[in-house]
């Protein structure tokens, strides 16, 4: 299969995009949103889940540090829309925006803590 001229023209752009994503620019963006996530987490989550989501206040409260980003987004959305029901978490999740959910999930998923154990 031959490479179309149009595809050839796209190649440098794709390469540039890849280089940019590996550069500190993307890292800075990730850190910026983790800062927002940390602020919200300290305000809204830490009282029960502990700092960095790693010191829950009751045995039945889960650790969140290191949890999968996509699972946290799913859980918060499930609480927000009522699919998952817990008196505390339903109330906490209801006022969150989608952006806040992504920031919180990003922040907790970047902390040390939970592991994939086998």
């Amino acid at each position, binding site marked *: 299969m031959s490479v179309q001229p149009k595809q050839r023209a796209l190649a440098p752009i794709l390469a540039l995009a890849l280089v940019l994503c590996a550069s500190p620019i993307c890292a800075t963006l990730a850190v910026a949103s983790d800062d927002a996530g940390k602020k919200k987490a300290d305000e809204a989550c830490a009282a029960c889940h502990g700092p960095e989501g790693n010191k*829950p206040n009751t045995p039945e409260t889960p650790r969140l540090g290191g949890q999968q980003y996509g699972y946290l987004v799913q859980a918060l959305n499930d609480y927000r829309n009522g699919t998952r029901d817990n008196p505390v978490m339903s109330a906490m999740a209801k006022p969150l925006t989608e952006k806040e959910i992504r920031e919180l999930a990003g922040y907790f998923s970047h902390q040390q803590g939970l*592991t994939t154990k086998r």
Partner: protein
Amino acid sequence: MNKRYGLLAVSVTTALVLSASAWAGGDPARGQARAQMCEGCHGIADYRTAYPQVYPVPKIGEQQAAYIVKALQDYKTGVRKHLTMRGIAATLSDQDMADLAAYYAGETRK
């Protein structure tokens, strides 16, 4: 003590003992032996569910034992709705749940 308060105290104590025994008696070695049913999803880094929604399964290593027991109970009773987890939790006894939770929480046998 008033008789009614006595009865209340007995019920509260019983409830506390029962809820504590739901997670206090886990044997991590037995849990590890039963964990094959979990490893197919939870033992693979970044494994994703395929149905009904696509998202990564949670990491459960080092999770709190009592939370794992509660999650399994909630799947068994249908409070939590994931179909696969509901099917798996339905096969587990209270003791199985405590054992699995002790294993994943990283507890060592006292």
